[in-house]
């Protein structure tokens, strides 16, 4: 069946009322967490994983995808009105968007962000639908050594390619890889690095690590920050509607942003934050009114917002077709698939085609819902920003620990008569780790990606070596793997050369850690 037919079938399934409800819950939650500073889509999906354990797999995945898309929409609101990005991909939006809000043009800024996100989400989701089957066909010819090369490439792009220090990115990655070693090795049945603790035999839960690093780490960093009380929320003044002039300047920026964001998300060449930054530079270059940049140019909001939504859709290409997560949110969505016994990759398209297409189609539906939720209801979301910080973070920690206890409620440690939950102790330990990583500017996402992708990479490596009977040169035998390694080398080498040539400032601005 051709893509149109499959997509149409998916749409029929996505429009069933249960799936519509899941999508609606997803986009609503996603927008809310996108708006709230301090929590992003990665954390929300991680918190919801244990709760959805008993729900329908298709519906839960549709909800997670809705959260991912919604987070991208909601983040822009915070950037524009608070000058503090709700999530890292909206840092660039804050540059022009907040200036516009200060000049009384907050309404049009929010509108161009929402409509731009819609346009980009629509085009990019359709692109996902048409590119995915093609990638799947290609991926079916991959052998273990090709997959290993692909994962090496993902490791490199996630940790070292962008961001301001390859050294710190790789260090984060290796912490994740090290944590991934813990537990019973599935191929030989031997225990590794469990130190005789029974709770460690199953390995470290991705959700526990992600919740700790994102929720606890972020809370500790925020409460320790002496400058945390210097923010003010700008009211939306004046007309919400965009003028004809605004439309004329926005639509080319939306299309350019989409064209930049989708390939970067799909390639995998880093997260949405990279694409929104590149889109901003592009707008600055192409603008007919470059003098307005830095003072509230609408293109500077439209382009990056379109780019980060397009790249969110783009990241789903490697996730669904290859099982390869390239952002923290994608890594946790992969854990979500695994929770339901599904393994994303070429075989998912063959064995669970209805589910995959329903998921892709529901993204189109979610996108439409988000436009409706975000344009007329913007005032409601803005009020979320007025929740006092102490209640907000106290609530975040309650839900963070709730998810962890809910996933594993055994109290396996005993000190005298008191029984303690090992999982909560892990949560605290990783939370402190998350704080230390933030304190010294180490990125968070590579730790999560390393934990989930490390064991998969090991499996492919050992398969490849088993076929070649221990000959390591097998890793470089196929043209595909050679091309992938070459791309990986460029991805590490290019930023280093840029830095040496004094362009480091650009890379510093690209550096960010989440989602």
């Amino acid at each position: 069946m051709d893509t149109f037919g499959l997509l149409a079938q998916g749409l029929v399934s996505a429009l069933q009322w249960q799936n519509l409800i899941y999508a609606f819950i997803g986009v609503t939650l996603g927008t809310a967490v996108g708006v709230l500073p301090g929590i992003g889509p990665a954390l929300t999906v991680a918190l919801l994983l244990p709760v959805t354990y008993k729900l329908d797999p298709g519906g839960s995945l549709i909800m997670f995808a809705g959260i991912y898309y919604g987070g991208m929409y909601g983040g822009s609101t915070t950037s524009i009105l608070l000058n503090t990005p709700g999530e890292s991909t909206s840092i660039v939006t804050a540059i022009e968007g907040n200036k516009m809000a200060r000049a009384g043009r907050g309404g049009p800024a929010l509108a161009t962000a929402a409509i731009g996100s819609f346009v980009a989400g629509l085009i990019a989701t359709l692109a996902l639908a048409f590119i995915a089957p093609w990638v799947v066909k290609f991926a079916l010819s991959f052998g273990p050594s090709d997959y290993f090369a692909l994962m090496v490439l993902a490791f490199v792009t996630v940790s070292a390619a962008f961001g301001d220090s390859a050294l710190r990115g790789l260090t984060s990655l290796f912490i994740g890889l090290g944590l991934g070693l813990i537990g019973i090795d599935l191929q030989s049945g031997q225990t590794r690095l469990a130190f005789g603790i029974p709770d460690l035999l199953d390995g470290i839960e991705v959700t526990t690590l992600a919740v700790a690093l994102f929720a606890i780490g972020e809370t500790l960093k925020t409460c320790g920050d002496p400058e945390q009380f210097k923010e003010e929320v700008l009211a939306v003044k004046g007309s919400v509607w965009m003028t004809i002039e605004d439309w004329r300047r926005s639509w080319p920026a939306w299309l350019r942003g989409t064209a930049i964001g989708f390939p970067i998300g799909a390639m995998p060449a880093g997260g949405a934050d990279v694409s929104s930054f590149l889109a901003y530079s592009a707008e600055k270059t192409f603008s007919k009114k470059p003098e307005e940049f830095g003072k509230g140019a609408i293109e500077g909001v439209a382009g990056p917002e379109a780019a980060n939504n397009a790249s969110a859709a783009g990241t789903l290409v490697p996730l669904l077709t290859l099982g390869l997560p390239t952002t923290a949110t994608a890594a946790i969505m992969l854990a979500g698939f695994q929770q339901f016994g599904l393994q994303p990759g070429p075989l998912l398209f063959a064995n669970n085609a209805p589910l995959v297409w329903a998921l892709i189609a529901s993204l189109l539906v979610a996108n439409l819902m988000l436009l409706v939720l975000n344009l007329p209801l913007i005032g409601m979301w803005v009020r979320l920003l007025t929740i006092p910080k102490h209640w907000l973070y106290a609530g975040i920690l309650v839900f963070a620990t709730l998810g962890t206890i809910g996933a594993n409620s055994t109290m396996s440690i005993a000190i005298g008569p008191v029984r303690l939950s090992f999982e909560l102790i892990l949560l605290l330990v990783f939370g402190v780790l998350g704080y230390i990583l933030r304190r010294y500017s180490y990125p968070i996402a590579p730790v999560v990606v390393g934990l989930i992708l490390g064991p998969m990479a090991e499996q492919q490596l050992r398969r490849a070596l088993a076929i070649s009977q221990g000959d390591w040169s097998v890793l470089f035998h196929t043209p595909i793997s050679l091309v992938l390694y070459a791309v990986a080398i460029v991805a590490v080498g290019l930023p280093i050369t840029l830095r040496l040539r004094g362009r480091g400032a650009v890379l510093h601005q690209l550096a960010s850690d989440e989602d």
Partner: protein
Amino acid sequence: MSESHKQSSRPDGAAFVIAAILAGLALVIIWQTSQMRVLPVQAKVGPTVFPYLVAGGMLVLAVGTVISGLRHGLPVRTPDNIRPILWVVGGLVAQILLLSTAGFSIATGFLFALTARGFGRGKLWQTIPIGMVFGLIVWFIFAKGLQLSLPQGPIERFLTTGNL
């Protein structure tokens, strides 16, 4: 944003501590892996190959961290207030200690109140009860509504069965 990423120009003590921790982790992995008994067939492609690779990578990164610490150090950071951080950590520890005996709501009430305290909201005698009520609402929604198994204490038992 860009200011916080400026590099300091003198050797940075924190970099050496981080390098030492990394190297320590690598040595633990190598030590534990060397204790594993591996069949001769598995020597080349067995369960020890990947741990050694990871540990090797960590050692290289530790050396890299030392070098970068000598050259320009880690990004400059503003001093954090340690006291609020200790309040929040204290909240998490209190919840861990209380959970199995006092139940979800009481333990969570302490976590909630101590976290709010970390963000500058004083008066624990007000915030602990607020947190407990909040915890109880959450317990009802998730334990009764969504069948999550959350530990019961006197409050939960009293409300569901009528006795303590």
